[in-house]
């Protein structure tokens, strides 16, 4: 690697240097050569990226990470996890001395006291066939040498973000040839900024200019509604103007950017004069003519002069128009967006859900006639559907709070373990843990009183001491009998319920010490917050608080949703009982119809293809997933395909299932380890396993296909692998419950 090619000024970039400076770098160099005003820019070339990656052997580590499984077998959560681990590689390795020296020298000369914008400029991005706009990271207003270098690393790492990996996969681009140049630009703060499409993506004969006060980030990140001008492409005459009453705009803060209120004039929406529109349009036309293709130009306006921040081809191919870039970008949520979501969830949705579940639970269904009961079933099914929809539209996206925190934590603390941040979240009180503590208390009573245990085993509930019976009933009132996999459901008799069976099994083993806390959460929290400059510490506390709320809700929401579903099932069970008892034919038809909407049998998890029979010639010996909870455990597998399988769960078995749901994690205190087909470090199975200090491997695609109840398994939660030994013939025959 020739040293002089690591850092280059724009003037040294030739038009065919795309592989060295990326599309954005080459475009800016061309504009500068043509006398168009651009910010002062230095280019950290792809040679610098390659030197960094080669020095630390990162390419192999990245590909080892990405090739553990077939990409198609990886869920988004697993891709996010892999991206987080890769990002940490970039954050925790030092720059090679040659690069460090050249970069520091350039920064000392040009950016010692100037704010910088750090932009991605990958050779693959900004082609006419594919727009990577927003896929790779850019950072605005970064000050100080160390911070600028840190942000260069982050831009490098964004080549391997979840969004970038998915987008390249969709475009069929080979990750092996991916590289990244980075532009370090002087920050130019214009009065107004915006974009111009020299050909409107909506109408080919038109151009579009959009403008916002302050920095362009307001527009690019969708935080500020821009004013818009549609121009005739030939004459440049304004065809239409849509003003925007902007009350806020994005401006530089001490570091980074912030939203701030605007003075009155900008609120009128007359952001640009006719002359300024002409200037921008003229500049756009000139740039299009230079590059010979329609352009998407980012500009800022300062003292009547246009500065072009970047220019790239408008992506016009059908493939580019139909790509899913917008969806990939939606995977990233801003702090502000998540704060708004939190208010809605905590102040409106959760209280409403609890109210609704309580109201449904208190209704006496016995007093309803058949028609009214059928109507009640339908109402409850609709209610259940309503909250299921909210689960997907609001609760699932809110899980990004924990992810955003994880990324920020790693950026500032730079831990060796990219999942160290989970320790700060693990101390969060959760409904499922409170439920499990109550179960352990019930088991404690049974353990101390053999007569109670005997009565439970024999189903003689009427002989139970009244205090124990009251405690049992209180549990049922809150969480149900645990038989159907729906929290709050009281299906079947109590004597034969999963709850009673579980309490007996828990009581049969020695008392379990409370979950041992090995980390000082408060000390960790302080360490995190003190990694920020004094003026940003309040924000850091807010982010931690948001993350804890997001982490807690990710578990609690299923419990709340379970309670709603339990009430829909209660009405369906009443309808089924009414039908079984006979009645007028017409009412029976109405009940039948309503009952069809709410099947009482919970479906077993779908068979993921061919299930290998015990006689098959093919067996899994060692399967690969993701490490999701450290530790090693060996035990018999208990494959759970439907809630009914949980009843047979024995102490020290390995819980194997398609997807762990908080409504079934009551068996986890009994388990020796957890293995899940669904993947991710921040999914329920992983969260609850870590709470109990259990080894956990998630994202094992074939686990439900190849593992049978009774198989001897070793769970290696450090490496993310499970080793399977076939069960003995005896164990096979004893495992037919699956």
């Amino acid at each position, binding site marked *: 690697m020739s040293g002089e090619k690591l850092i280059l000024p724009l003037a040294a970039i030739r038009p065919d240097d795309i592989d060295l400076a990326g599309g954005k770098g080459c475009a800016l160099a061309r504009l500068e050569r043509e006398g168009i005003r651009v910010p002062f820019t230095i280019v950290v070339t792809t040679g610098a990226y390659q030197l960094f990656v080669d020095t630390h*052997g990162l390419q*192999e580590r990245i*590909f*080892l990470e990405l*090739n*553990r*499984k*077939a990409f198609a077998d990886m869920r988004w959560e697993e891709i996010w996890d892999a991206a987080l681990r890769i990002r940490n590689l970039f954050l925790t390795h030092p720059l090679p001395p040659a690069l460090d020296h050249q970069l520091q020298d350039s920064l000392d000369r040009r950016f010692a006291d100037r704010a910088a914008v750090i932009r991605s400029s990958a050779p693959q991005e900004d082609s006419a066939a594919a727009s990577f706009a927003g896929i790779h990271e850019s950072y605005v207003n970064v000050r100080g040498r160390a911070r600028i270098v840190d942000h260069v690393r982050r831009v490098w790492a964004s080549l391997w973000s979840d969004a970038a990996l998915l987008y390249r996969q969709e475009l069929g681009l080979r990750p092996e040839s991916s590289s990244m140049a980075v532009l370090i630009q002087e920050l130019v703060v214009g009065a107004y900024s915006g974009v111009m499409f020299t050909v409107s993506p909506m109408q080919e004969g038109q151009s579009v200019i959009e403008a916002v006060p302050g920095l362009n980030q307001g527009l690019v990140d969708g935080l500020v509604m821009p004013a818009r001008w549609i121009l005739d492409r030939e004459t440049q005459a304004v065809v239409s103007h849509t003003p925007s009453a902007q009350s806020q705009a994005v401006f530089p803060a001490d570091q980074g950017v912030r939203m701030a209120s605007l003075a009155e004039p900008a609120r009128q929406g007359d952001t640009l004069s006719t002359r300024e529109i002409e200037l921008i349009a003229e500049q756009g036309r000139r740039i299009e003519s230079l590059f010979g293709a329609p352009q998407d130009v980012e500009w800022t306006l300062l003292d009547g002069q246009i500065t072009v921040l970047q220019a790239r081809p408008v992506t016009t191919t059908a493939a580019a128009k139909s790509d899913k870039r917008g969806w990939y970008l939606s995977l990233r949520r801003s702090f502000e967006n998540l704060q708004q979501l939190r208010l809605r969830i905590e102040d409106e949705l959760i209280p409403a859900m609890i109210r609704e579940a309580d109201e449904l639970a208190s209704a006496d269904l016995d007093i309803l006639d058949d028609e009214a009961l059928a109507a009640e079933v339908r109402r409850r099914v609709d209610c259940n559907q309503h909250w299921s929809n909210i689960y997907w539209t609001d609760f699932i996206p809110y899980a990004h709070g924990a992810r955003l925190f994880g990324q920020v934590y790693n950026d500032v603390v730079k831990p060796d373990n990219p999942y160290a941040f989970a320790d700060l979240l693990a101390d969060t009180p959760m409904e499922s843990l409170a439920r499990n503590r109550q179960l352990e208390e019930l088991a404690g009573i049974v353990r101390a009183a053999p007569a109670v245990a005997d009565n439970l085993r024999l189903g003689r509930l009427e002989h139970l001491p009244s205090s124990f019976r009251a405690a049992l009933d209180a549990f049922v009132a809150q969480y149900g009998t645990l038989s159907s996999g729906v929290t709050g459901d009281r299906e079947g008799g109590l004597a034969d319920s999963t709850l009673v069976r579980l309490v007996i099994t828990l009581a049969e083993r020695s008392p379990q010490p409370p979950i041992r806390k090995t980390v000082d959460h408060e000390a960790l929290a302080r360490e995190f917050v003190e990694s920020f400059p004094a003026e940003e510490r309040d924000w850091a506390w807010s982010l931690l608080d948001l993350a804890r709320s997001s982490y807690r809700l990710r578990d609690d929401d299923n419990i709340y949703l379970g309670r709603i579903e339990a009430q829909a099932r209660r009405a369906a069970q009443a309808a089924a009982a009414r039908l079984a008892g006979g009645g007028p034919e017409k009412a029976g038809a109405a009940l039948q119809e309503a009952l069809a909407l709410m099947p009482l049998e919970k479906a077993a998890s779908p068979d993921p*293809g*061919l299930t*290998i029979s*015990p*006689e*098959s*010639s*093919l*067996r*899994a*010996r*060692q*399967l*690969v997933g993701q490490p999701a909870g450290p530790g090693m455990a060996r035990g018999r597998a208990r494959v759970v395909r439907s809630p009914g399988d949980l009843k047979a769960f024995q102490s020290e078995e390995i819980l194997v299932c398609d997807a762990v749901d908080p409504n079934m994690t009551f068996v986890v205190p009994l388990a020796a380890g957890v293995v899940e087909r669904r993947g991710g470090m921040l999914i329920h199975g992983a969260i609850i396993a870590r709470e109990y200090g259990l080894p956990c491997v998630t994202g094992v695609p*074939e686990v439900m*296909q*190849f593992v049978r109840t009774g198989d001897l398994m070793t769970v290696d939660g450090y*490496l993310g*692998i499970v080793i399977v*030994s*076939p*069960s*003995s*013939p005896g164990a096979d025959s004893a495992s037919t419950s699956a």
Partner: protein
Amino acid sequence: MDAHETVRRDIAQLLSEQRLATLSTCNAQGHPYASLVAFDVTPDLAGIVFATSRATRKFANLTDNNHAAMLVENSRNQKSDIYEAMAVTALGVVSELSGTSQETAVAHYIRKHPHLTKFIQAPSTAVLQMAVDVFYLVNRFQKVMEYHVGRKADPAAGRDPAG
């Protein structure tokens, strides 16, 4: 293609593409030995044919103890081998071929290794075949599948190649 067919196809492809295998043997005292052999596989994957001089240590070991392991892999001595390479370990019992079974095996072997015709036809060379009990297919660094050839799986047969 289901998992069963995929694994069988991968094993068959690797065994037909690769020319050399690492043969592991053990003498009567339990001392191990490893050697490189040119091999051929029978069309039903049930047998792996190789040849050796009767004067070699591997032949002596196999005379003492006919249980053996054979490793076939396609690494290229690159860093990316760790996730790109595939390996198959075969476990089974080795016996010397004779008569028509030997003639058939030799004819097939020569098609794969024409330059070894003289070697395999020499009077001092023994033509051997491993009757494969089980294959272990390893790919993506750590994924291991167990494939039993031509019979129902016998749990007791599962010795651990990685162990």
